[in-house]
């Protein structure tokens, strides 16, 4: 158990080791640890920000979807209304057209009936004249009687 120069040797060694450690070992390791701590903190903050942004986006998405749904139902309602209107318009137009067609047909029928009656009238006059010729048994003055017949047929 001799106390000797080893004691000083140990003390000096310790000082040299501590100096080396303080200069070349401690700072880089500590810097790296602090840098990593900072990065982790930044990462967590970024994650939190991302989370809140995601929630915001979710909210916006829900809003947009409900707005879209509402718009869609409005459009459908409008379309239905417009469809009904178009249907009514078409019905009305069809009715009018039908009435017009019926009227036109009726007018045509009237016109044809008048024409037939005129024709019939003339034929009856001719027949009557022939019958009168037969009854009188003689030639009558055609010109003098045509006038009478024309008056007669106009009177029919």
């Amino acid at each position, binding site marked *: 158990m*001799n106390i000797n120069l080893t004691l000083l040797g140990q003390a000096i060694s310790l000082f040299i080791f501590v100096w080396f450690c*303080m200069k070349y*070992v401690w700072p880089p390791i500590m810097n790296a640890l602090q840098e990593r701590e900072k990065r982790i903190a930044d990462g967590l903050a970024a994650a939190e920000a991302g989370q809140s942004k995601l929630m915001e986006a979710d909210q916006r998405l829900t809003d947009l979807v409900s707005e879209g749904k509402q718009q869609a139902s409005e459009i459908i309602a409008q379309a239905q209304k417009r469809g009904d209107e178009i249907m009514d318009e078409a019905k009305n137009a069809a009715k009018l057209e039908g009435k017009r067609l019926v009227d036109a047909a009726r007018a045509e029928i009237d016109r044809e009936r008048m024409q037939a009656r005129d024709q019939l009238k003339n034929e009856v006059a001719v027949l009557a004249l022939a019958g009168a010729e037969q009854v009188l048994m003689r030639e009558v003055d055609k010109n003098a009687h045509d006038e009478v017949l024309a008056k007669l047929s106009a009177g029919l």
Partner: protein
Amino acid sequence: MAAGSTSGTPAGYIQHHLYNLTYGRHPDGSWGLARSHHEAADMGFMAIHVDTMFWSLAMGALFLWLFRRVAVSISIESPSRLQSCIEAIVEMVDKSVKETFHGSNPLIAPLALTLFVWIFLMNFMDLIPVDFIPHATFLAGIPYMKVVPTADVNATFGMAFAVFFLMIYYSIKIKGLGGFGAELAFHPFGKALLPVNLVLELVSLFAKPLSLSLRLFGNLFAGELIFILIAALIPFWLQWALSVPWAIFHILVITLQAYIFMMLTIVYLSMSHQTH
């Protein structure tokens, strides 16, 4: 093994294991290795324990080499396992320093780290079976070899002396010579009992490095001695029954002793920085 390689009796074996390899000045003025315990004792203060110095420097170099290697190639994104392990040690020391030391002194944390790892590595030499290195070196012609530097009171005193020097240095630097003197003279009983204060404070001041070094030395010397006793007195086929449990227990002891030395150093230096 039980009888050792150097001496026929257990007593001789044990003693042989307790002597340091000493280089110094013989009484006749010439320098050289001590060939016996008496020669080493005759050298007095002008001698050096070659084995203690060699192993402590080797352990210190191992510590600095390992930590420097990690520090140079340190990676923030993908730390290797070694880096994670070293980071854990550094963080543990950093946390201890931050919790205990409330000044701002860039020396304290590296000092604490150096002390913790260096002492742990020197203590760790205790777990190498007691005869491996001494027997090998004896065959190589070296008469003595104590491989656990912290089981040499010179080593622990040397470190405690360095810490003590720092305590005094920072006490005077922070508080001034007068402030430091006042702290020694006027506490705990006030100015009326100055001599009593001085005696009490000086005793407590010098007790700090003494307890620091003797605690470490005592634990490691005793641990080493028990390993030697097991090796000396028990037949080789039964030694494991005692040396293995003791070694497992000793893993705790060597870590704890390194930690205590570090913590007390931080506490003492923290006290040196505090002004009342």
